[in-house]
């Protein structure tokens, strides 16, 4: 579904991604972990071109998204993204946040989007917040709505960029729970996170990124129980 070849990204003189090659299949739940500054967020943001790679290629559903001729807006409709800081639109109600893109892009009529938004709110357990504004809600609620907003586009893959890092500890659970449900339904997911429990429980594959390369990857059981790379051993000994 997503095939990354020799991906490189440089900010000025600083080489953040140093040649990453990776293939993510449909239905996989790939969790990406690594120390801060290792390039894991940059890797994720390159996948939908929020960061423009300086080298290599990314093929999504058969299309090279790094090709300047590619209509990236079209492809992004199929890649949902959830941000650390939620990035809900503060001037719109919760329901309008969810409806905005499908209606503006003429994928749904207003009535269809309305129905879809209410279904999604029902499913994340917040139907009573439809007419609230994002700032009136807790961080956990905001992040669940951000996930619903991405789902409203019926994406083929969901990218999560440290979705629980900005949350109070007591709200982390509700967001992870929703992500778990999503995973169980077969959604293809790429998740950058520090939640090792989530990685262990939900991931089909765990990647360890260090210094701009994938230093190690494995199924979650072996990844956590039998790490081989010295940097990963050191990292796991600190976080577990």
């Amino acid at each position, binding site marked *: 579904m997503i095939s990354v070849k020799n991906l490189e990204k440089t900010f000025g003189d600083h080489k953040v991604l140093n040649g990453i090659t990776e293939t993510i299949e449909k239905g996989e739940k790939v969790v990406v972990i690594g120390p801060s500054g290792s390039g894991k967020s940059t890797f994720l943001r390159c996948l939908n071109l929020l960061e*423009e790679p300086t080298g290599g290629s990314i093929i999504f559903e058969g299309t090279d998204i790094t090709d300047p001729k590619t209509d990236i807006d079209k492809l992004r409709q199929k890649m949902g993204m959830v*941000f650390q800081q939620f990035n809900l639109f503060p001037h719109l109600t919760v329901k309008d946040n969810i409806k905005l893109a499908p209606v503006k892009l003429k994928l749904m009529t207003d009535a269809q989007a309305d129905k879809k938004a209410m279904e999604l709110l029902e499913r994340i357990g917040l139907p009573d917040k439809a007419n609230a504004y994002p700032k009136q809600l807790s961080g956990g609620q905001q992040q669940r709505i951000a996930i619903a907003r991405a789902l409203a586009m019926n994406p083929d893959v969901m990218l999560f960029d440290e979705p629980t890092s900005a949350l109070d500890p007591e709200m982390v659970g509700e967001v992870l729970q929703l992500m778990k449900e999503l995973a169980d339904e077969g959604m293809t997911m790429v998740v950058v996170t520090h939640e090792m429990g989530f990685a262990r429980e939900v991931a089909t594959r765990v990647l360890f990124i260090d210094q701009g390369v994938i230093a190690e990857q494995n199924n979650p059981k072996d990844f956590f129980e039998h790490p081989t790379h010295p940097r990963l051993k050191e990292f796991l000994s600190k976080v577990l």
Partner: protein
Amino acid sequence: MQEWFRQIAEDFSQTFIEEDRWMQFLKGLGITLEVAFLALVLGLVIGIIIAMIRSAHDQRRSQKKGPGTVILNIANGICVVYLTVIRGTPMMVQLLIMYFVIFASSQNQVLIAVLAFGINSGAYVAEIVRSGIMSVDAGQMEAGRSLGLNYRQTMRSIVIPQAFKNALPALGNEMITLLKDTSLVTVIGLKDLTKTAMTVQSRTYEALMPFVGIAVVYLVIVMILAKVLSIVERRLRTGDKR
């Protein structure tokens, strides 16, 4: 005391009532409002266009070079020159140049005043709007783009509404300044509110009533404008309630 009141009443009558002078003041007020309103509209149009060009230029992260990039660079350069010249020279001098140099052959003072004030105001509005756009978190643009909206759609539906809200206090300030600055049109002989007061004073040799009178008129208009702006601001704040 009584004598003083009588004198005041007489001055008032002489300034505003005799020879129907209030009609002149009303006409002057009309011109002031006309110039201020049209210049405001022109300033907003110019300002928003320039702010869009400047922020599109600043936000562009791609290192790719294409014809679009070149055009944007040229447009941005023109905007910078415009901002520098307009903000770097006095309003009155701009008005004089407009009237005596650029439109020396024209006698349409209202049009010249509108152009001069609109072009001047546009420079300030541009920077106000640009600061509004920059005050919107970069994550908002990213969220919009990640949903598949293009740059223009994201700007229009997500960034601009928030930028406008953030810029509104400063924008209101600029409107008030513009309204009061229109009194400068006296130097090109346009009979606005201020010029009318000067004319009346030269006829009656009485300065207090006409000048204090128009000061009150300006004040009242500004207060009304400020009130309207605060209502709009409150309306736009709906999303901020916690």
